[in-house]
């Protein structure tokens, strides 16, 4: 387990070098992810959103931090709680750059509105989309089910001699599934470039992590495969970024798979239908402490402390700790608001698929 140990000691290593632009972009991306969530809740109230919203509120640093550590050609597989990942991927290549290896905000809003210009032409809901071209694996609902697929992608890329890395996102609850074990075991033996990100938000629907996982950290599951398993502070985008960067490097160099656990907390219900119930099955101290370190605030504090941003600039937008009903557009950078607006405007005008499409594409002719 020497590798694992070495990697866990990296908290003391210097940060990976980020330019000032990177820092600011990361900060902005956190706002973007947060605003996406808040905006969707509003769109749901307006009746535009179709289906359940699985909020990633309070968990944005996990997505932004891990995705910022990737190359455009790397693969990812987001699941229900990772909706922003689809457009955050390779976002640094330009928010409106059609060449970037991520899905456009227009397409993503089409997806959540159930419109035909969604990546899957509105055939499957919420996060069940992807793109071969953009290197995003299409998931099913079956938790942990993307990990074997990711292993296959990683195998294929490795055989082609590419140094591409494949990243799967999973809730801590999903790590109980057989697919998790089968695929990571396989990837470990074959040293496949696959990183399993565990978003440990402490709850799997109504069940606390302690009811389904016996190890102190979920990342300890890595020990059963003798691969690195490290824990990041999921509220701190830079801690996530640093640790992810190392695992990415480790994978690129052919050393094989690893697990990155990001400790975070699910701010609201499992889905929006569960928002009211969630307060009943979760102790209020648990909720309060889980929500106490907003990733926006943690990032802001870091930028100020490191003199990357002055206090006034840093405090321009204060969406921290605000729920959808509390937050207003002033709390977010205009650029972020416009980006979402751009997506919503497009999606409103996108149509529904023709009924006949329901019968199409069962087979390729």
């Amino acid at each position, binding site marked *: 387990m020497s590798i694992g140990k070495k990697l866990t000691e990296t908290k003391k290593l210097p940060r990976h070098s980020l330019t000032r632009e990177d820092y600011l972009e990361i900060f902005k991306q956190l706002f973007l992810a947060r605003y996406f969530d808040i905006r969707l809740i509003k769109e749901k109230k307006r009746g535009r959103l179709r*289906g359940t919203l699985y909020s990633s509120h309070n968990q944005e640093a996990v997505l932004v931090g891990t995705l910022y550590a990737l190359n455009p050609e790397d693969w990812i597989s987001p699941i229900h709680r990772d909706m922003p990942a689809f457009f955050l991927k390779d976002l640094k290549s330009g928010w409106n750059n059609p060449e970037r290896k991520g899905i456009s905000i227009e397409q993503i809003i089409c997806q959540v509105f*159930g419109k035909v210009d969604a990546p899957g032409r509105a*055939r499957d809901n919420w996060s069940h989309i992807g793109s071969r071209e953009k290197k995003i694996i299409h998931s099913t609902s079956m*938790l942990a089910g993307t990990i074997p697929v990711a292993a296959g992608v990683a195998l294929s890329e490795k055989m082609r001699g590419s140094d591409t890395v494949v990243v799967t996102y999973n809730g801590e609850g999903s790590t*109980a*599934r057989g697919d998790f074990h089968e695929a990571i075991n396989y990837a470990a033996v074959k040293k496949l470039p696959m990183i399993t990100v565990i978003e440990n938000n402490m709850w799997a*629907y109504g069940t606390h992590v302690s009811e389904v996982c016996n190890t102190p950290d979920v990342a300890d599951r890595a020990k059963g495969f003798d691969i690195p398993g490290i824990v990041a502070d999921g509220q701190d985008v830079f801690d996530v970024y640093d640790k992810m960067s190392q695992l990415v490097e480790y994978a690129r160099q052919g050393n094989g798979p690893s697990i990155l656990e990001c400790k975070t907390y699910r701010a609201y219900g499992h889905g929006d239908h569960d928002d009211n119930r969630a307060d009943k099955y979760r102790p209020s101290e648990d909720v309060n402490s889980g929500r106490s370190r907003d990733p926006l605030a943690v990032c802001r504090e870091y930028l100020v402390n490191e003199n990357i941003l002055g206090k006034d600039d840093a405090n321009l937008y204060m969406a921290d700790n605000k729920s959808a009903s509390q937050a207003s557009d002033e709390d977010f950078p205009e650029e972020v608001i416009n980006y979402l607006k751009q997506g919503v405007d497009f999606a409103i005008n996108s149509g529904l698929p023709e*009924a006949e499409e*329901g019968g199409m594409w069962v087979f390729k002719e």
Partner: protein
Amino acid sequence: MSVEQAVKTNYLNALKQAIDEEMAADSEMICIGEDIANLGGAFGVTEGLVDKYGKWRVQDMPIAEECIVGTAVGAALTGRRVMAEMQFIDFISCGFDQIVNNLATFHYRTAGEVPMPVVLRGPAGGYGGGALYHSQMNEGWFCHSPGLKVVCPSTSYDAKGLLKAALRDPNPVIFYEIKELYRRKDLEEELPTTDYIVPLGKATVRRSGEHITLVSYGQNMYHCYQVADMLAKDGYSAEVIDIRTLVPLDEQTIMDSIKKTSRVVVVNEAPRTCGFAGEVLARVCENAFEYLDAPPARCTRLDTPVPWVKPLESFVLPSVEKIYNTCIRTLKY
């Protein structure tokens, strides 16, 4: 108030009562599943049970369907009755091997030594925009796996009565609850205040008719009633049968009806090929061929997954219109 108010129970609460009563009656019985205790189930079917029966008898399981089914098998092996919930019936695929190769065959393999009083139940069915993984009716797989009983209630009375019967049955039962019926107002009804069951393996004639037999179960029953009304306007009286138990099938009730009507349309929302509707057609050929005045017909989902948005979903699932057209075609044959 002096006048007693009739208490009406919906489909979901009928199920809850069934589990509650059976748990109360048998202190060895256990309930297992994801989020069934602390949360009370994704839809609330097990709400409150953990408070009554404790964390062991009503147990939150890790997200691990093979393990849930295997655990049920093990507990049953030690003589316990088990209710195991699939959060959505779609996820039953993740516990498939333990179901078809272990649970289903245990009594057979052991030459009768070990019965398997296990009910696997969960929310099922389409028409709610649940898309590919929250809309399935996959009962065909299990009808094709010998050793399993397969049940699907369409009313609150049956929901309770069939579930109680299933929980008392010494055989494994895959129990399809129609989630779109859970809270349907018009399905609320006054249930008997005393213990009752609806026996497995008995279909029921919901409406009597002369000209055509409609055979269905689950949510499609309500489409069939509408079609029967439409046909009535056309001057045809339809007999409508609710199968309720798919395995073992009550052939008698179906064949008796066909002997009277000479025409049959079978309706279900599962994929067409090798689905249960086709099976009924085959049995009709085997048992009532000489009574047929028209080819036995089926109205099913297309051979596709259940897509998401309404126009797509409607295109692939049976509808009142499609069933009606199938009936007219059969009647005019």
